[in-house]
């Protein structure tokens, strides 16, 4: 009997927690976000979160938004769409946040943006770039990143200018890499290049031995990987082990991150990648942001961190423009806004897709990530052709 009553007391306590949510606090503007703190996007998610946090700190030092203090509420989405979905439901209906920032990665953003759309809640998305996110007719998702389908255009144009023809493409089977891959196919066709190899690989694969051997047999001159950090790193290692050689190696996401060079050392030399942002870019506030970030966190910001910070700035500009946090006014402000943040220009089309910001291409040269394309923003001349693995 005793145990039964103990159990029922416990049970009622649990119920009480559910029925009476925590008492709300003093007046402030609450920004909600999910961040990938565990799982396969953990590295990028943490960088992005650091960017958000830095913006929150700075905006409060400037006196907050509309005279109120800004507070960030964030949870770990475990790099999975289902958890992200649940979290945005929580942020909107339980935490009742005033402003929303999107999650990292296109697949989590796909799910999260549907929640935002359901509640008609405008969301500024940093960290998602699959074109499909903006072709579903949603009215509440505003992107900072250049769409994924344009990622490899500069690399392919450069390859063409060097007279290369044979392109090998590998891509991960999730939303964003598939979008990049579609872009590669379209661009290769437009440039009349031959796609001699085109293969998809699993979400968690890190074994590319057979892939590298197959590409080798196709005598590809350009190898393009639509990838994230772990897979691009693994691929480069195995390409070296299996003596896969091409004139150009380019990967999405990975090479743009400091970790890529740190993990691969000499093997990173000459590898190209895409970036949305570099500290050296001639954008007002970019260098300054990079310095403050490095001072605060003890490491250089990559584009994920800058994107997080930029998302905060876009929200700030939109709230100022709307002079309100009313959802409808904010949505309109985000649609009309044309501004420059430390991350670059923000201007979207009627679907909320980013059209104001160009993409950039980087290359690892002498242990440093250098911006090589477009030429007007370049910090170094491209190194071409790729130096063979054994000759370094």
């Amino acid at each position, binding site marked *: 009997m005793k145990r039964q009553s103990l159990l029922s007391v416990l049970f009622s306590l649990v119920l009480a927690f559910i029925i009476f949510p925590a008492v709300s606090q003093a007046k402030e503007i609450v920004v909600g976000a999910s961040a990938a703190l565990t799982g396969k996007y953990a590295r990028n998610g943490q960088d992005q979160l650091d960017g958000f946090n830095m913006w929150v700190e700075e905006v409060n030092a400037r006196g907050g938004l509309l005279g109120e203090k800004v507070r960030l509420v964030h949870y770990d989405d475990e790099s999975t769409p289902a958890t992200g979905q649940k979290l945005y439901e929580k942020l909107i209906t339980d935490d009742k946040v005033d402003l929303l920032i999107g999650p990292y990665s296109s697949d989590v953003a796909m799910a999260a943006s549907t929640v935002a759309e359901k509640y008609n809640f405008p969301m500024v998305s940093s960290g998602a770039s699959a074109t499909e996110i903006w072709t579903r007719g949603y009215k509440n998702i505003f992107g900072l990143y250049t769409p994924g389908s344009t990622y490899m255009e500069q690399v392919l144009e450069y390859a063409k200018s060097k007279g290369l023809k044979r392109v090998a493409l590998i891509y991960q089977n*999730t939303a964003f890499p598939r979008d990049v891959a579609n872009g590669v196919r379209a661009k290769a066709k437009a440039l009349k290049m031959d796609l001699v190899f085109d293969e998809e690989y699993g979400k968690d694969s890190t074994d590319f031995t057979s892939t590298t051997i197959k590409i080798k047999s196709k005598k590809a001159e350009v190898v393009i990987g639509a990838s994230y950090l772990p897979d691009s790193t693994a691929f480069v290692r195995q390409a070296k082990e299996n003596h896969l050689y091409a004139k150009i190696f380019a990967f999405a996401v990975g090479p743009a991150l400091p970790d890529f060079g740190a993990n691969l050392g000499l093997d990173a030399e000459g590898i190209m990648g895409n970036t949305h942002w570099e500290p050296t870019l001639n954008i007002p506030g970019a260098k300054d942001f990079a310095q403050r970030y490095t001072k605060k966190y003890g490491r250089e910001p990559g584009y994920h961190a800058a994107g997080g910070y930029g998302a905060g700035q876009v929200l700030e500009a939109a709230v100022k423009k709307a002079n309100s946090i009313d959802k409808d006014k904010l949505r309109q402000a985000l649609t009309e806004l044309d501004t420059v943040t430390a991350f670059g220009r923000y201007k979207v089309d009627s679907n909320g897709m980013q059209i104001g910001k160009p993409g950039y291409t980087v290359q690892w040269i002498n242990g440093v990530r250098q911006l090589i394309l477009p030429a007007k923003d370049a910090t170094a001349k491209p190194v071409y052709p790729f130096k063979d693995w054994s000759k370094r």
Partner: protein
Amino acid sequence: MLNNNRRRVSLGLGFGLMLIAMTAPLYMNAYYQSFLLQLFMMVALAQAWNLISGMTGYVSFGHTAFFGVGAYAGALLLLAGFPWWLAVFKGAGIALLLAVPLGFLTLRLRGPYFAIAMLGLNEVGRIIATLWVDLTRGGDGISLAPKLLPSLHSNYFSMLFLALSATLLVAFIHRRRFGLELRAIREDEEAAEMVGVNTTVNKVMAFMLSALIPGAAGAVYAMYTSYIDPSSVFAPALNIQMIVMVLFGGTGTVWGPILGAGIVMFLREMLWAQFPAAHLAALGVLLLIVVLYLPGGIISLFRARQQRARPDARTGAAP
């Protein structure tokens, strides 16, 4: 007398829980409803797993195959313009039909062979969903627009209905000859056959019933999350969760999976926001303790107490 008592407690408890679940949308915000919805989903899935693996002892590592099939069927039918409830029915139906040939094929295997075959089945499902791009859109996943989706309330009550029917199904079978025969298969399949149990038909029947529920749950899940991709629905991790919850609560019992799902989900919910990653480790340790010291699951705590109480009850009643 005691049996009656237990039955009454069971009924009372069940009725109370149902009352809470039915009225919850009146006073709970959308997030807590979402939480309960996921709890119901896990109860339904755990019961489905319990039905085949708990009762017959055929441990399935691939029940998410049916979940995934249901999710894809539900999402695609919804996109094709079917009303949501019909899409759920059809999703469940497709999973059920699929279970017939698969059951006949895989249930010839015993022990670890069956477990591995089912794990493989889930992988096959995931790979088909990845490669059949024309139908499933492959790794892009399927995104369902809000205007297509049923309301949170509809999803909530659908999942509640699934959890309830899965539980009633297990309870019903438990008391029938069918349930006894299934448990006989678990204890000794040859012996069961010797005494005239048609083991093949029984196993396949149980397998079909246990595929029906994940099929329906998958379809509702797709409509609830609005976005599915091959690795999020053909997810071995989800299958592990079903197993964990059943083991945790008590294998082969009616209340075990409910208890297991309830405890695991509540603990997760309380821990995860504060301790990303660490909460999974904590759950793992807890499970280890339960499996080592309470092989019958949490439910055996209640059982043991009742058994101890039996002699007292008798002497109390005798004079």
